[in-house]
């Protein structure tokens, strides 16, 4: 899986490309956990390049969110396509994760803190 990263101040924007499923979620998990273990506290996951996400991917996002919450950090997601939005709705993820319409808003969300 291609994962690109962009720094904006203290915020790291991680953008996975393609599907987040059983075949690719381990790689995303290693990438995100590596950053969090190294002390990252403000994370945006740009889902603009994500075709779809299965429960394997939801699991990785949940793990990252829990780890950040425990460390007093902030996570926001952006760029969800309609299929990803539907999965989030079914899983009840909108009530536990911060989701913004675009990356700029997500960066602002984790910078302001919530």
């Amino acid at each position, binding site marked *: 899986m291609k994962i690109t990263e962009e720094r904006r101040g203290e915020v790291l924007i991680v953008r996975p490309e393609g599907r987040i499923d059983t075949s690719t979620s381990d790689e995303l998990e290693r990438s995100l956990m590596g950053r969090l273990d190294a002390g990252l506290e403000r994370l945006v996951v740009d889902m603009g390049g994500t075709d779809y996400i299965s429960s394997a991917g939801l699991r990785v996002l949940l793990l990252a969110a829990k780890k950040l919450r425990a460390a007093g950090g902030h996570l926001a997601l952006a760029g969800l396509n309609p*299929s990803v939005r539907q999965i989030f709705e079914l*899983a009840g993820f909108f009530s536990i994760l911060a989701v913004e319409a675009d990356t700029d808003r997500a960066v602002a969300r984790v910078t302001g803190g919530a």
Partner: protein
Amino acid sequence: MSAETERLALSVPGSLPGLAAAVEAFDRFSTDNRLPDAVRRSIQVVLDELLSNTVRHGRDTSHGVTIDLLFRLGARTLHVEIGDDGPPFNPLDSADPDTGLRLEERPVGGLGLMLVRSLVDEISYVCEGNRNQVILAKRLEE
């Protein structure tokens, strides 16, 4: 001309590479038949959930598990049949996870089969002899 049906039948090993091959094959079938993105993505999630369960449950079997897939495209509905010779497993049999829990309370597992049941319009399961068979249908239009 009567409503044409496009079909794709394939067998894959019950392994992670087999799962990936099945998803890729359906991806090409979707493109070739111009399936709406929403339908393609839903079925790809369903395949990931069901086949990853089959792979996981088949790990302890002495023989390698084989997964047979059949996709049939009707005028208004996509039909999918997934059969395997792994241990008996009914994907309809699990309780839905509590999606109202707060972040800290949420268990990490349990979402997959709930997603499957929500993403298709019809689903049934039968265990015949040593075969699991899941039959599902998804309407092409919302």
